[in-house]
């Protein structure tokens, strides 16, 4: 079948098997190397993308559900100001993520930034637990998540970069 969707702002049209999964398509066609297929079961969270504004596991999105979807991957995030805020918060708190998880964790942090209300500690824990990191301490990631939001508020109040 033919599908059409938006990937990081670009229109994509391709012929696919309806049962193909977004993660495989992105990988196979070299559209987004940041997406890793680690478990293929929706568990590890290393294939995270933002699908229509929400984080989603790309290995659990069948091609036939991609019609007109808007997908953002890490490659798209890198070009936004949010990315710089996240980089800054990670650097400030010494959080070093591996290259397999960094794209997914950054996308989750970007989703937090989009929220209107300050997320609760529980929201942060729930959301960031979607990636099964094996190398960082959970508290470090939660601290960075809170810091990212803090930086955003600072930006709105005109304190960015201070």
């Amino acid at each position, binding site marked *: 079948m033919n599908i059409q969707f938006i990937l990081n702002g670009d229109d994509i049209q391709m012929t696919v*098997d309806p049962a193909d999964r977004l993660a495989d398509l992105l*990988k196979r066609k*070299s559209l987004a*190397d*940041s997406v*890793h*297929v*680690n*478990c*293929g*079961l929706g*568990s*590890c969270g*290393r294939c995270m993308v933002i699908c229509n504004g929400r984080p989603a596991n790309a290995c659990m999105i069948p091609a036939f559900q991609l019609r007109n979807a808007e997908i953002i991957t890490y490659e798209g995030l890198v070009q936004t100001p949010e990315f710089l805020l996240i980089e800054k918060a990670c650097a400030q708190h*010494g959080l*070093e*993520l*591996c*290259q*397999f*998880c960094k794209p997914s964790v950054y996308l989750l942090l970007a989703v937090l930034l989009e929220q209107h209300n300050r997320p609760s500690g529980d929201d942060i*824990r*729930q959301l*960031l*637990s979607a*990636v*099964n*990191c*094996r*190398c*960082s*301490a*959970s*508290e*470090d*990631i*939660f601290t960075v998540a809170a810091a990212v939001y803090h930086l955003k508020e600072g930006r709105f109040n005109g304190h960015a970069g201070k």
Partner: protein
Amino acid sequence: MDKRGRSAETGLPILSNFRAADLLYVVTLRSPVARGRIKSIHIPHLPRGYRSITADDIPGEPYLEVFGARLPVLASNQVAYQGEPIALLVGPDPARLREALELTHITVEAEVPDFNFNQFNSERIAARDSRQYGDVELAFSIAQQVVEGDYRAAPLYHAAQEAQGAAAWFDYDKLMVRTGCQWPHLVHRQLAAVLKVKDVEVVVEAADPGTHLDSRLWYPALVACHAALAAVLCGRPALLVLSPEEDFLYTTLRSPVFCSYRAALDKNGNFSALDARVIINTGAYGVLADELSRQAISAVAGAYAVPNLRVQTFAVRSNLPAMGPLAGMAIPQVLFAMERLANDCARQCELDPVRFRAANLLKRGVDGPQGKRKKNIPFSQLCEAVCQASDFYRKHASFELVRKRHSDPGSNPGRGIGLALSWQPPAGLSAPANVYSAAVEVELTKELKIIIRAGLVPGTGGTVAIWKALAAEIIGQSPDTVRIEPVTTADLPDSGPSTLSAGITLIPQLIESACHTIRSRRFREALPIKVKKSLRNRPREAVGPGDGCAWGVAAVELDLDRYTGQPVIQGIWLAINAGHILDEGKARRSLAASTALALSQVLSERIQFENGQVGANAWQQYRLARFMEIPPIHISFCGNEPGSPAAGLGDLPFSLVAPALTNALSQARDTAWLADFAGDIPHGGDR
């Protein structure tokens, strides 16, 4: 990440991002049974551009020679475990390859497999070791009390971020092979032998192995040979990446270990003798059997003084896939048993577990299985830190009271707190003792860039940051001017293997020494200046905790959930003495991360077995703990004084968490129930 898929932090590429024109994919045809003789292989007619590869196509040695074992690159006659590679299918479209795989039929005359490793005949022993001193029989005959226990550690999966695999392609006259491995030179040697080519004709480049937990000591050599065979026989680049399920089912798991202990105690509650039997299941082919049994024996008495000792270890082959070391060469499994035994002994003597341990500890100047110790173990200092922070004495005493008073066998006392003591040798828990070397080259270029070429694979971005900061500081430049070059076998002499903590403990020493040399030559010689440093075969102290070890004590407190009966961790406290710590923040983060991982291993990562083998749905049932399940982890450092030698510490949680948690669990659950459960880790896997 740059366009070639290299990480900015580690400089290592991600294997699955490998791209090349005319790329061929490789899939593996596997044995349907655990043991038997191959009768026939029926491969469907393959379209043009596709081919199959069997053992007959191998130009050189059809075997890998790794860590004392010989195992077929592709089985041609006998199969020794379910899923053993028998043939490869190669072609341009992975979907068609999978279809072909389904239509392939292998007939194997099945034989009765050996899964059980508690009982075995001498033919199955891949290695054995023993140690005896004093008069064990006499000590038992006059013992005040005898405490016995069987402690089992089940297999664990490494769950690294990418499944194993390899890519192979030609670069002019050289065959390039990329694989996520810990020891590129070992892969290189195997490739040269299997392909029957000269050493200089193959270059191995390390891909990012992820958080491998030492699961990539040798297995990458097998998949590298498969990808390389495809590339050589088809004359095109080839990529083999195992499916996540294949990686789980057929690559190395941590060796299951069964420890049967018997301790004799005198009237003061001190060990008068220990009689131990340790059986390690190496899976098929007995890879690392010698090493595992030697290391296991070194840890068998833990950190305790035992005047009369008899211990036997057996590394036993079975028809499970070849097992591996995983975060410690059987040492964590054996320390788990000994720390459980110490707990059981303390309970039997009605002593608190701190006093029992303190009284039985190895002491300075006293002869033990480890020879004469020069230093005391910093137990009381570490214990004080942990016990104060966790309120151990009060909690332990009151939970113990509840346990003793509790009479209803249908319910649990419900709360527990447990303690454990452990050490980490200087090169990390899993450095094989006799095959160790490391090399580093540091270059200061004309453009004043610092380039580090390390023969070992840096574990994480964090490790790389430490290397960069160190080099920059000594040479007097900013860390931004430091670049880590990809690890390949072309540049440096044999280095390896990269174990969990080698990147933190050994490479910095070499970088430091190379950078000091550069600094002293800098204004006397023209740039560029290149300095190579290496370190070879520093055999580990053969037995037990030597004087240069890092030490740790952990306490874990837990409740049993009233409805699920599952342990809910209330707190976890660690105190560590690892000499001078270069960066306390980083050390704390690294320890917290390993502690979380160790907790996940103990609480969640039980692999479901059916009829002796990993079950058909085990992959769907395998679960890692999520961030939100990890409780706050409290860490304190003792003895962090400048001048005291630094020791690696990142592996400590792998041998501390399991026994501390299980000791807590033994208090929280009633003893009757414990009888058939006590020793087993991991404990669960409920979602």
